[in-house]
């Protein structure tokens, strides 16, 4: 082999490998995106870092006592070999000892997670108020009752039922600071298609602009008005009338029935 052959041979190999690498690189970008309906086990690093750290051994899958984790197969639109679960099929039961994290031989499932209530697998959202029967005024509350962090992650807010005019609606409300995204609510939803879903947090959670201040909170923190003293509002009302803030509106300042009944009768 002379020098020319060697250089040309190496170049040819390098070009071939380069093409292969390009193909693999492009494919890996495509193949490393997680669909929103697939959730990672508790403690999983954020998706990009998870795809680098996970060695696809399936120890988390095997150590899950509820067998709700799976390894992605080649034909699934999930990075091949990585663990996932589908909330609608079976949510995470939130074991206190977190066996899946303990089993992980890398930090793909972050071993710093020791309290399962700090897990962040996603965030629940009542995604369809038209379908959810609680919004129709019916009593359901299944998602609320099955929530492992009931009253923290999901609360029921009472609202007036405007349709009947005399009943209450028990509206499920998710609280993002407590929800772990375990998916039990979506699994348990009684509808044919769940009206409460667990999705990756970044897809659904809003965030107030950093510069934004809520006046009443600032006022409460400061213990008073921050710009100028609040002026007492003066109403310019007809004589004998006052404004009732509880919803009555403009009313007479006096008692409805004066002591002399004739006064009422003679009123213009």
């Amino acid at each position, binding site marked *: 082999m002379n020098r020319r052959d060697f250089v040309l041979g190496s170049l040819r190999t390098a070009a071939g490998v380069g093409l*292969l690498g390009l193909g693999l*690189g492009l494919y890996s*970008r495509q193949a490393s995106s997680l669909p929103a309906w697939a959730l990672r086990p508790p403690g999983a690093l954020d998706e990009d870092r998870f795809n*680098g750290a996970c060695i696809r*051994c399936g120890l988390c899958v095997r*150590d899950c006592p509820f067998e709700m984790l799976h390894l992605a197969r080649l*034909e699934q639109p999930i990075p091949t070999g990585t663990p996932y679960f589908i909330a609608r099929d079976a949510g995470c039961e939130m074991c206190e000892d977190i066996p899946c994290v303990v089993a992980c031989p890398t930090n793909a499932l972050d071993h710093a997670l020791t309290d399962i209530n700090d897990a962040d697998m996603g965030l629940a959202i009542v995604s369809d108020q038209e379908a959810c029967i609680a919004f129709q005024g019916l009593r359901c509350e299944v998602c609320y009752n099955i929530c492992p962090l009931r009253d923290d992650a999901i609360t029921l807010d009472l609202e007036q039922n405007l349709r009947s005019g005399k009943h209450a609606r028990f509206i499920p409300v998710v609280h993002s600071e407590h929800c772990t995204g375990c998916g039990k609510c979506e699994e348990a939803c009684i509808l044919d298609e769940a009206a409460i879903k667990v999705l990756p947090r970044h897809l659904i959670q809003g965030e107030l602009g950093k510069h934004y201040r809520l006046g009443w909170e600032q006022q409460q923190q400061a213990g008073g008005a921050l710009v100028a003293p609040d002026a007492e509002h003066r109403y310019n009302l007809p004589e004998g009338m006052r404004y009732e803030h509880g919803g009555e509106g403009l009313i007479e300042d006096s008692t409805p029935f004066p002591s002399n009944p004739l006064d009422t009768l003679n009123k213009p």
Partner: protein
Amino acid sequence: MHDYPGQSATAEQGWLKAHKWLILRRTSQLGLLGLFLLGPIAGIWLVTGNLSASMTLDALPLTDPLLLAQSMLSGSLPVMSGLIGALIVLAFYALVGGRVFCSWVCPVNLVTDFAAELRRRWAIRASGRLSRQLRWWLLGLVLLFPLATGLMAWELVNPVTMMHRGLVFGGLWGMGLAWLVIAAVFLYDLFLVRRGWCRHLCPVGAFYGLIGAGAQIRVTAARREHCDDCMDCFEICPEPQVIKPALKGASLGLGPVIRSQDCTNCGRCIDVCSKDVFRFRLGRGSAVLPAAPASETAAVTAAIRRSSSRQSNRSGNPPISRSSNRSIHLTHSNAGNSANASTNATH
């Protein structure tokens, strides 16, 4: 005169003797697979996980060091159990031979061995030419990806882990399209390039070869003077280039031990040889015979360079500096192993 390699060995020494290491090897491959399948099929969980990382009897962690390396290169800190597991695996293969993984453990070997066997039976001679160095380039690529992109890109397509994971986690009918990848490897080996996957491309094998560069269990052509040039060992060997210096290097002053890291320690050469030329031995032996006087060292070096010019460089240096490196290495081992070599001569 031969219909297939090992024919005369079978005729002279019996079928069992001519397939001893093959049977042991298949037992090992299928037995390990069986151990992993015992859990999902029979509910007996001796081993969980797969070849990427496993836990045996809740006590012995084993981790694929190549995968852990990729994981760490992506910027993730390892966990103690994973690290210990990788060190155990590293130590084991460093001792018994890195590519023992390929021939005794890897499930893809069943497929590629089958392809090679069919190739022989159907007399498919045509084979595409492919550099055996490709696997080193690919290994570089595999390690570069997590470093550069933070993604373990290789694991998206790796047939080795894909096959084992598919079998253990899905069973024969549950591994999905991973079958296509395995079938592709099979057809590629069968029709396109002889031993194309394991010998030319597989970066996993290249990595394990690297681990086992100094392995202590080796095949030696101890009775090479009895060789009758039937070529059966070359025919059956998955890495035939490793045999030549050991078997035919006596006149060049080369030792009888197969020292190449490419050797998979599969033992098939031992099986098929009717003259019992080969056997396993402990220790690496020396590269050259003690009889070679110091003045001939240069000639010996040149001979090695010729006979194993394709041998991959251990140190990872660019190929252009390989020959000079090797000669330095040889003169060292010459001096260091002279005592060792004299015991060799008795074999």
